[in-house]
């Protein structure tokens, strides 16, 4: 399949596809970060994760409409305010879901899976009732559009760069939060030894609720970010769910670094394959390779050998 291209052409193909792979990597990573916390850290399967993302996207849509109607002079910065709203909205919904549903099911992972799937159906229909079946898009301020030419052959879209920037920011933030902050340490303590954490005075129930809500909040940020590169419909969330789970599982569920590495390799592989094969075949091939690797190495890319 390489025979038809010269070396120079191949070079720019790989550079361009590599860059679009970087954007895909950012998207995958951003999707997976929230789940890495909820599933990787807490072991909870949240099948409604995609719907939390969509909620973030809809909140962004509403904010954008609000600004363009009432505060057009501030439209240039609305996006950052929308991200904050998206985080708060999904965080609160996450806390509510944890309180009403998840906390009753911590010892029944398969049941959690089914219940959160039910939740995802309800949310989907809710979106459909409120926002209609049509996909909605947001209008971006001028400075976020267009692209930056690196060479004649290589152009870099600005919104892609912003997505990457946000992803980097959130990833570092999550890492620092888990490793350094008091709440983060508590949440890791609860994961590692619930009984002990409770015994030394950590309120495990509130830590659980906070951790789950945080994961949902990050999903909300992801959803808000995606409005820059695509439109949002009531069922968009369902499209993400398989990719998201595979990224987390492939990385080795409990490892944040693994999630990053896995999002990177899946993103790059898919985007480079996409140039040579049809989009669907590239996706099939990538997912298939991921699954075969997972079958051979179920613990994922990164994991510790621990006593079981």
């Amino acid at each position, binding site marked *: 399949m390489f025979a038809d291209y010269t070396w120079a052409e191949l070079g720019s193909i790989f550079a361009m596809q590599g860059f679009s792979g970087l954007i895909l990597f950012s998207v995958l990573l951003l999707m997976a970060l929230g789940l890495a916390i909820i599933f990787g850290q807490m072991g909870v399967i949240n099948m409604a994760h995609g719907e939390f993302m969509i909620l973030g996207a809809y909140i962004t849509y509403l904010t954008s409409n609000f600004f363009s109607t009432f505060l057009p002079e501030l439209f240039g910065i609305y996006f950052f305010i929308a991200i904050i709203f998206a985080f708060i909205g999904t965080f609160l919904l996450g806390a509510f879901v944890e309180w009403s549903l998840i906390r009753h099911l911590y010892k029944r992972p398969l049941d959690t899976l089914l219940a959160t799937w039910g939740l995802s159906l309800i949310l989907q229909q809710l979106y459909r009732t409120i926002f209609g079946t049509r996909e909605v898009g947001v209008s971006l301020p001028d400075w976020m559009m267009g692209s930056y030419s690196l060479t004649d052959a290589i152009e870099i879209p600005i919104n892609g760069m912003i997505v990457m920037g946000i992803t980097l920011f959130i990833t570092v933030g999550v890492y620092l939060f888990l490793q350094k902050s008091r709440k983060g340490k508590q949440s890791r303590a609860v994961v590692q030894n619930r009984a002990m954490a409770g015994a030394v005075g950590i309120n495990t129930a509130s830590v659980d609720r906070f951790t789950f809500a945080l994961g949902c909040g990050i999903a909300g940020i992801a959803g808000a970010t995606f409005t820059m590169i695509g439109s949002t419909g009531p069922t968009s969330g369902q499209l993400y769910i398989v990719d998201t789970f595979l990224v987390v599982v492939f990385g080795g569920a409990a490892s944040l670094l693994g999630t990053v590495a896995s999002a990177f390799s899946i993103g790059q592989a898919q985007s480079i394959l996409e140039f040579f094969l049809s989009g669907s075949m590239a996706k099939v091939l990538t997912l298939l390779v991921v699954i075969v690797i997972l079958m051979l190495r179920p613990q994922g890319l990164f994991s*510790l*050998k*621990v*006593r079981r």
Partner: protein
Amino acid sequence: MYQQKDFVLSVEGLTVSFDGFKAVNDVSFYIEEQEIRVIIGPNGAGKTTILDLICGKTKSTEGSIKFKGKELTKLKEHEIVHAGVGRKFQNPSIYEDLTVFENLELSYPRGKKVFGALTFNRDQEVIDKVNEIAEMIFLEELLLSKASLLSHGQKQWLEIGMLLIQDPELLMLDEPVAGMSVSERKQTAALLQKITKDRSVLVIEHDMHFVEEIADRVTVMHQGKVLSEGSMEHVQSDPKVIEVYLGH
């Protein structure tokens, strides 16, 4: 080579490391036919890990485990069972949703493959054997109750019964009297006396009176290594052992 004939189990240079931490470090010991060996030692000494290694639950990093001259480290768990090693876990692990009868029946040494299990027939032989074992473990009245209804001590007995029905040549028991009342303890001691005839037994136990009562030889472990070995008196007077138990 030839000396192994006398030993049922020979463990040599056994080591396992978890991420660099050696939970069991260069351990060797030998168990003779019909011997009752007790392993004692403080928490985290690697006692349970030794049992895990012998029965195949954990794979060793180095060393060999020979059972009747057969290397166990390369075998899968169920193959080790078929070779004649039975193991009881620390927490009673039984099938709560099944009846006592069904619990015992599942350990009966027939129909262990998929199609064997599909066509398994509950004939008189099975019923007789289950009844015989149930009587031995004081549960003959409870054959038709669900196992979840048993007391803690009865669950321990049931698990021992599940091993007996396999008739293993080496029986490994992890804290068989933990959590038992005084009268249950006495019954268990009597049960062990009865069942340890005709086979070798490897026991982990904390209760020193119980150890004294049943042990032929005692192996003391500390921090993954064998600290001392011999008769109970020998071990008790060993300064190294006293240091470990009383030193801190």
